[in-house]
Each structure stands twice: as C-alpha cells, then as structure tokens.
C-alpha cells in the first residue's frame, strides 16, 4: 500500500499529477451537486490527536465530496484518552476496514509508524514538527493558480522554520517543482543543518521581500520567547513581522500566503492579512480540492497512483 507521509515521497510528475487533478476537481465546488461517486463504499478515517478543526473539516469535506464514508476519530473522549496506544488504535481502525487513514499527531513520525500497522493508505495530516504534505500541496496549488507557474518562482518562507512542519513540506515540494525557496527567520529558529536543505537562508526580511514572488508567513508562538528563541514578541514582530511598510517593499504582483491560523499583530499585520494579495481564504478553498485529489489518487483505483511504498 502506498501512503502520503512526506512531500519527499513525491516526484515531479506525481506532484504535478496531484495539482492537475485538483484543478479538475475544483470545478465540483462550483456546481450545485458538489459530489462525485468515485469513492462510494470506501471508508476514510480522520484520526486526529491534535485539535485542528480547519484541517479535519477540509479532509472531511474532501472525502464526502468523493462519496466516501467518513469516520472522525478524535483523541478527546475516545479510547485514546483512556490510554490506548497508537498501535491498538491502528489495529482497531484496521478491523473496521478503513481504506484510508488521515492522521494528525503531535509526535513526529506518528504517520510513519501508523503506516506500518494498517493495511490502508495513510495520509499525514501533520506530524509533530516533521511534515504536513497536503498543506504544502495546497500552497503550491495556490501559487500556481495565482502566478501561473512554479518553475523559477521565488518563494520566501518567513518565521519559525525550526518548529514548522509546513516549512519542511514546502521546502521539499517547492524544490521538486522547480521553485526557489528562501527561508527567513532569526538564526535561533532555523535548524542547524539548514545548509544541507535545498534552499537559501536569510536573516534579513527587508532584503528578501523585493526579490520574492511569494511571501509565506508562518505562525510564531509568542511562548517561544520563554525558551529564548527571541527576546520579546515585539522585537520579533519588528524584525520579522509583515506590516504595511514591509508589504510596500514587495513586488506589485507578489502574493502573501499564510497556512493559518494567523497571529495578527505578531507575524502579520491586519491590513496585510486582509489585502486582496493575501491568499489565506483561497488557500482554505484550494485545500479541499487538493485533498480530494490526494484521496482519489490514493484510494480511487486498484492501487494508489502516488506516494511512498
């Protein structure tokens, strides 16, 4: 069985196949009957160990639009809360005949572990500080939709790269798709071996902004200052926040992205977040199409057409 655990699992053609499939499936959202019979009789389990209404509902909607049966299995109030191990939960889902398991977990690698215990396809919906492949796919989709290309696109990813699964997945996927990524963060918030990653690194946002077609802001938790990653939220915001003045440094066609949830006033100011060049809500809409594409390509045929074996 094949799984989508990391964007590193996707070759160029596979990634493009997902984006192209998503583009076709996006039409469904504009029809009166927003449903396809494709996954009729298939069961998709949403296994969420972390609260994430946004991601869970996006996957749920995607699966339902493909006519799959969807079971939401959240850690709260379930056997998980009573101390059931991930493996036992996996075996339970297995016994229920889950064809696909969408898993969000606070531990890096949880999706990998799960994939070893169930027969169905596992989709990583975010594991610890590791990866969040469908977020990167919807980001790439949104970039292609807004700018018309990915090859050669200059993308700045700004913020807490160290703890960001979104950044990891995006760096790998955008590199595969030919974009040029620059990570921008205080040195405390980039991994020590970032020099081996397929991207550039800068500590100076003002210098990078004019040279970027896409600026992706990552959420920064103010609590990080308690671990000495930066002195104060105010200083972080001053040096790395995207406010009106910095927004003006960007190219006229450059867009602002954010995976959400945003911390307005911290990494992004309200007027930038609400600008027509901000794609935040578009990213949400595209998320459903991209997740439909992933579920179709993993579960729609006799065997998955994408992902890691």
């Amino acid at each position, binding site marked *: 069985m094949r799984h989508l655990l990391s964007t590193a699992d996707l070759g160029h053609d596979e990634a493009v196949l997902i984006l192209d499939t998503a583009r*076709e499936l996006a039409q469904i959202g504009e029809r009166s009957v927003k449903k396809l019979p494709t996954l009729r009789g298939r069961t998709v389990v949403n296994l969420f160990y972390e609260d994430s209404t946004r991601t869970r509902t996006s996957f749920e909607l995607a699966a339902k639009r493909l006519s799959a049966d969807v079971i939401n299995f959240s850690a709260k109030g379930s056997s998980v809360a009573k101390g059931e191990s991930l493996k036992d939960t996996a075996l339970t889902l297995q016994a229920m005949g889950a064809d696909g398991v969408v898993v969000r977990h606070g531990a890096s690698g949880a999706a990998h572990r799960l994939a070893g215990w169930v027969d169905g396809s596992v989709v990583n919906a975010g594991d610890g500080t590791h990866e969040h492949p469908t977020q990167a796919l919807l980001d790439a989709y949104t970039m292609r939709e807004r700018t018309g290309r990915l090859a050669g696109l200059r993308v700045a990813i700004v913020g807490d790269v160290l703890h960001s699964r979104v950044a990891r997945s995006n760096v790998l996927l955008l590199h595969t798709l030919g974009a040029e990524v620059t990570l921008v963060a205080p040195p405390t918030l980039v991994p020590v071996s970032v020099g081996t990653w397929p991207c550039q690194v800068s500590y100076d946002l003002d210098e990078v902004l004019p040279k970027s077609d896409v600026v992706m802001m990552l959420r920064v938790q103010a609590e990080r200052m308690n671990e000495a990653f930066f002195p104060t939220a105010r200083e972080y915001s001053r040096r790395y926040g995207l406010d009106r003045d910095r927004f003006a440094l960007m190219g006229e066609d450059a867009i602002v992205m954010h995976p959400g949830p945003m911390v307005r006033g911290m990494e992004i100011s309200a007027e930038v977040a609400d600008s027509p060049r901000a794609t935040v809500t578009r990213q949400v809409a595209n998320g459903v199409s991209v997740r439909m594409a992933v579920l179709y390509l993993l579960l*729609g045929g006799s065997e998955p057409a994408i992902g890691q074996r």
Partner: protein
Amino acid sequence: MCAQNGAEGDPSAGPPGTGAGELRAVLEGPEIRRALTRIAHEVLERTKGAEDVTLLGIPSRGAPLARRLAERIERVESRTVPCGALDITMYRDDLHLAPARALGRTDIPQEGIDGRVVVLVDDVLFSGRTVRAALDALNDLGRPRAVQLAVLVDRGHRELPIRADYVGKNLPTSLRETVRVQLEETDGRDAVLLGPAGGPGTPAEALRRSAGRPGPGGESTGSEEENR
C-alpha cells in the same frame, strides 16, 4: 498503452511480427471527414437547426471530435454552437480494476446544460459503460432537455441498453479485436485501426487491458475508449 501512435499503427513502420504491423486501417482521413460532415448534417436535421444543441466530447478523443462537429454545424448555420468536454473518469464503474488515472479535462460551456439538447460525442461505442458514466455525470451537472449520442465508430458488443443516435461507421468486430481511433489533434493523423487484441506492450499493460475491457472469458467492464 499499445499501438496508439502513428508509427506503431502504420503497417509499414514496424517490422513484421511485432504486432504493431497487424493493425490495419479500416477508415482513413477522407472517410472520417466525410462521416463527420454527415453526422453534423444529421444533427442539424434531427434537432431542427441545432439551436439549443450543446456538444460535449468525452476525453480524450471525443473532445476534438465534438469540436470538429461544432465547426461543421457553425459553417452551415453561421453561428456558434456551444461545445465542451465532459470527463467521466470519476464516474467509471471499473476504477477498482486499475490504478487511479489522471483526469481528463471537463469544460462545460457558459450556458450550462439545463434545458439544452446535449449531444455526447465519443470515438468508439463498445460496451456502453462510458456513456452510462457520462449520463451519470450529466445528471450531477444539471437537467438537459434531451441527451443524444454521436460516435465515430460503433463496434457492437453492448453490455447496457444504450444505442447511438449518430454513427460514423458500424464496424462489426470480434471481442478479440481492438479498435483504435487516431486523430490529427492527438495523434498527428486521422485513422481508425483494427487489429488483434493483446498487441505490443508490456505484460502489465496486457493485464490492465484484459481487466479494463470486455473479453471472451473475462470481466466485461471496459470502456469503449481503448486508448485511454
């Protein structure tokens, strides 16, 4: 899959015995063009001037055929005919028999399909399952006044109660044979080729073929489009 490009389909191109050489053309460019012109006129006649006709081609080769029909009708009537494409992949009944496939383009004309006479256009009519899927897809898109079917070739062997309203050529075949349609737009030339099943290709392709198409002793769930 197999023998879908011009080189392999050309009897003179491949060395004898490779299988590719056993395909023979039963319709050539001029005959295909004449058949399409005739179908265009029949559509005009049957729909009394085709005023509320929308042509929807089923990808991949139904879509260029639909455009050619639209051009011919427009030439006669001197007005545009809404023409689009309807991908039926997500409605197929044999998805579980092969790995998930890439989707074709769906492109519904601005007017939509409510109240229109939709003419579905495909290259080969075979088991009828593709048309069944297309009818399901239409049902989710709206409510046409009527749905008609135009095909370039009807090769028989229906598995569902479906018939074409417009046929370019009836081609009696055995289940062991394959029918391929080649078009300028997709293949660089116009031709309808007939050959034995299980031509050149890898064993995996042969397996997929046998699973995806009606066969003498096997599953009979295939689509008419053999070059998908």
